[in-house]
């Protein structure tokens, strides 16, 4: 037991293992607890910026219904990820490689890397706009946002172990800032504003569902974590329970948000730093709620760096290189130029992503995990016919089962 705990803490055995596998795989580096914290405390932060106003605009105030549908759909994808983790200890790359060959695995991984970059485009522009509204009284120059890419480039050079630890850190930061902000906001919020539930036409709810697809396609982020997380008995309940908690945070925020701003909600973009501003005590002590919003921004930064980090991991894996620094630098430079140029065309980019390219998100968030399921089942069939893991592979797998080097 002690040894396991030790490994959980990032023991030397795990370090050695991680080093040996290099950038290719980081088997077992994500612990159950860290996955739980990720789905409970990191996934919800991305839904606090533009999602509420987008839902309020398209779903005509009945913003809970499309959000619940999205959360349920995503819950299925997370359930699928857990099912895959329970059935295979291979990484997604190894899974494709064993099913379709190395070339196909490389192509899919490059496609996944491109998807992660594409997935980041709109959120980055959103984040930039949020930064300008929440951190500055007057509009600053674009250079104010540039250092984000330095941070992102740094994160991109790190492996999944660092990501897993950031999930650990997310728990106290999220709880303190979210609970603090909500305590200050709840008193001023009119909960009856969201009533009647499911009162708008289904077409509006469907529109809201469709247009918010980008904000609820996080399940694709889990694919490169396949193999890095090892399923243990009882993990399903823990992870799904944590996801339910994260979903509750999102839905609760949507209710408070709509209760505060009502019909103004569609134009209240990036308002999560404004929800607590009506709290009476702030007149005396100043905007201390901003400190909580800023704490939450640290998590937003972690979250927005994650797809880019995964993009670098996927690309490095596809081209079989351990040199993440040039890849991370090139990717972030490209994104910096993109953000610098397209910041003025936010609406056009927004329309392009949500109207014309919205189908890309379910392909990677839902169809690709289904494809992985197909590969796992195919592999099992092979194994039952005499294929599958060799004795030495099984031995290694059993040995590694004890490691969860977080």
């Amino acid at each position: 037991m002690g040894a396991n705990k030790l490994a959980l803490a990032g023991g030397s055995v795990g370090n050695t293992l991680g080093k040996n596998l290099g950038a290719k795989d980081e088997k077992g580096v994500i612990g159950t607890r860290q996955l739980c914290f990720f789905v409970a405390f990191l996934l919800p932060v991305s839904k606090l910026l533009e999602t509420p106003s987008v839902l309020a605009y398209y779903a005509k105030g009945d913003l809970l219904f499309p959000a619940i549908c999205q959360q349920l759909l995503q819950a299925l994808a997370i359930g699928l990820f857990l099912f895959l983790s329970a059935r295979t200890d291979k990484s997604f790359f190894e899974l494709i490689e064993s099913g379709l060959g190395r070339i196909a695995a490389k192509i899919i991984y490059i496609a996944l890397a491109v998807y992660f970059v594409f997935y980041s485009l709109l959120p980055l522009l959103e984040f930039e706009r949020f930064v300008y509204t929440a951190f500055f009284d007057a509009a600053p120059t674009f250079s104010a946002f540039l250092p984000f890419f330095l941070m992102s480039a740094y994160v991109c050079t790190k492996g999944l172990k660092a990501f897993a630890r950031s999930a650990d850190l997310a728990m106290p930061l999220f709880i303190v800032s979210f609970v603090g902000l909500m305590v200050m906001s709840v008193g001023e919020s009119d909960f009856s504003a969201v009533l009647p539930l499911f009162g708008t036409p289904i077409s509006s709810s469907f529109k809201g569902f469709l247009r918010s697809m980008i904000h609820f396609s996080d399940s694709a982020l889990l694919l490169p974590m396949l193999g890095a997380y090892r399923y243990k008995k009882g993990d399903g309940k823990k992870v799904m329970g944590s996801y339910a908690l994260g979903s509750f945070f999102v839905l609760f925020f949507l209710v408070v948000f709509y209760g505060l701003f009502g019909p103004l909600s569609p134009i209240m973009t990036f308002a999560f730093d404004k929800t607590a501003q009506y709290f009476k005590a702030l007149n005396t002590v100043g905007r201390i709620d901003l400190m909580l919003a800023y704490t939450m921004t640290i998590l937003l930064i972690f979250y927005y760096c994650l797809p880019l980090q995964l993009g670098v991991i996927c690309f490095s894996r596809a081209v079989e290189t351990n040199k993440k620094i040039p890849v991370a630098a090139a990717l972030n430079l490209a994104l910096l130029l993109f953000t610098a140029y397209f910041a003025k065309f936010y609406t056009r980019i927004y329309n392009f992503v949500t109207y014309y390219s919205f189908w890309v998100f379910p392909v990677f968030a839902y169809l690709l995990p289904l494809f992985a399921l197909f590969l796992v089942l195919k592999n099992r069939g092979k194994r039952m016919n005499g294929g599958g893991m060799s004795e030495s592979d099984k031995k290694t797998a059993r040995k590694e089962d004890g490691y969860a080097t977080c």
Partner: protein
Amino acid sequence: MKNLTTSLNENIELIKTELPAEDILVYSFTSADKSLRFAIVYADGVVDKALLGDLAARPLKRLTAPEKGKLALNDIKEALLFPELKEQTETEELKKEILDGNAVLLTDGLKEAVIVGAKLPPSRAVIEPPTDVAVKGPREGFVEDIKINMALLRKRLKTPQLLFEMQKVGKQSETNVAVCYLKGIADEEAKDAIVEKLKKIDTDVIVDSSYIATFLAPRKRSVFRQSGTTEKPDILAAKMAEGRIGILVDGSPIALTTPYLLTEDFQSSEDYFVSPFWATITRVMRVIAVLVAILLPAFYVSSQLFKLQLLPLSLTLTIASSIQGLPLSPSLEMFLVLFVLEVLKEASVRMPKYVGMALSVVGALVLGETAVSAGFVSTPAIIIVAFSGICLYTVPNFTETGSILRWLFLIVAGSIGPFGIVLTAAFVLYYLISSDAFGVPMLAPFAPLVKEDLKDSLVKFNMERLDKRPTLFKPKNRTRLQSKDGKKTKKGETENGSK
């Protein structure tokens, strides 16, 4: 490599050629009946001459040549009243022993020399260390002599499990370095890794333990320390009992401990001598104080330049009235005041004690009061910098890192405002979570979260609840506290960890 001969004069000549320094002295004498000739070679100032006279020269003077046969080495060793005696014939080894502070006894007619352990290097008394003052608890502190430091540690850990692995580091200084650990508790893999790293150090001189810390650091360019330091044997003993490894360096009163966790800096030895509630409160207070020290000047500047909403309206008005007519921008003003603080701090450490009083007057009154009345800087800026400076000293081990971070945050706050502060905070956190030292994450037990080790992190549980050693240090024997009747601990483990 040269060996000694049977001629005393030749041997003295040989050693003097190898060690021509003026402080290498030769004391030649004969026995009372003039039948035997001896010489003691030693380095002046590092040998206990009185002891050498009483326990070596005096008995040897009384010695007489045997009636039959030649004088044997054993006769001499029997005559000497020293417990530490060694034979040696190689001049190279003799040279090392003399330089190390031991005396070498040469006898005419014998080609073996006797090394007499009469080392007494100059050393100061064991006093309370100035950097680690405790209101409650032991007051002994380490000194520069490694032997005394080892004895101070042994005094507290009277167990055969306490082991010292000695190394000589530094080509010129040949500094003694002791890696100390508790066998059966410390992770021996980590100990071996440290010893290996010590062996690989190829430098001229090791004058202090901080040199060793630099060589051991996994991240050489980090602004964060990567090994713990302490000047007190009680703290070192307690840390070793948790599974850490200690490193004592001859010539340094500061012991190193590794693996190191960032939370250690926020703990004090006193926390273990007061109520756990009070210990927890003070630990949390230290964290808040350090955060205030690092972030307050940055937030003050960024609120003025980029986000006035951060301040309450009444405070904004007060600040507005006090900064009216200032020739400097808020960031430049804060820079200047912070620079003055750092200069005053640096000067007060270096300058003679008697001038210190004058410096305080100049610093506090002339620079502070006059600068405000002259309209160079505002009163809030001085208050903020002074408070930030005081806050940082609540955690003395963090002052260097804290100062660097304060400058860094001030620069980003002056450039891109609160977003810069948040971004830098995120960067620092990510840097810390991805840093390991000897397989132990620096930000543990928070990231990764190790639930059991939280009991003595920022919160401090009652001693009885701290029944297990921290898992982070991979101790072989995790049980720290067991009930006297040998009953199993609450998780069903006996002392040796078996169920």
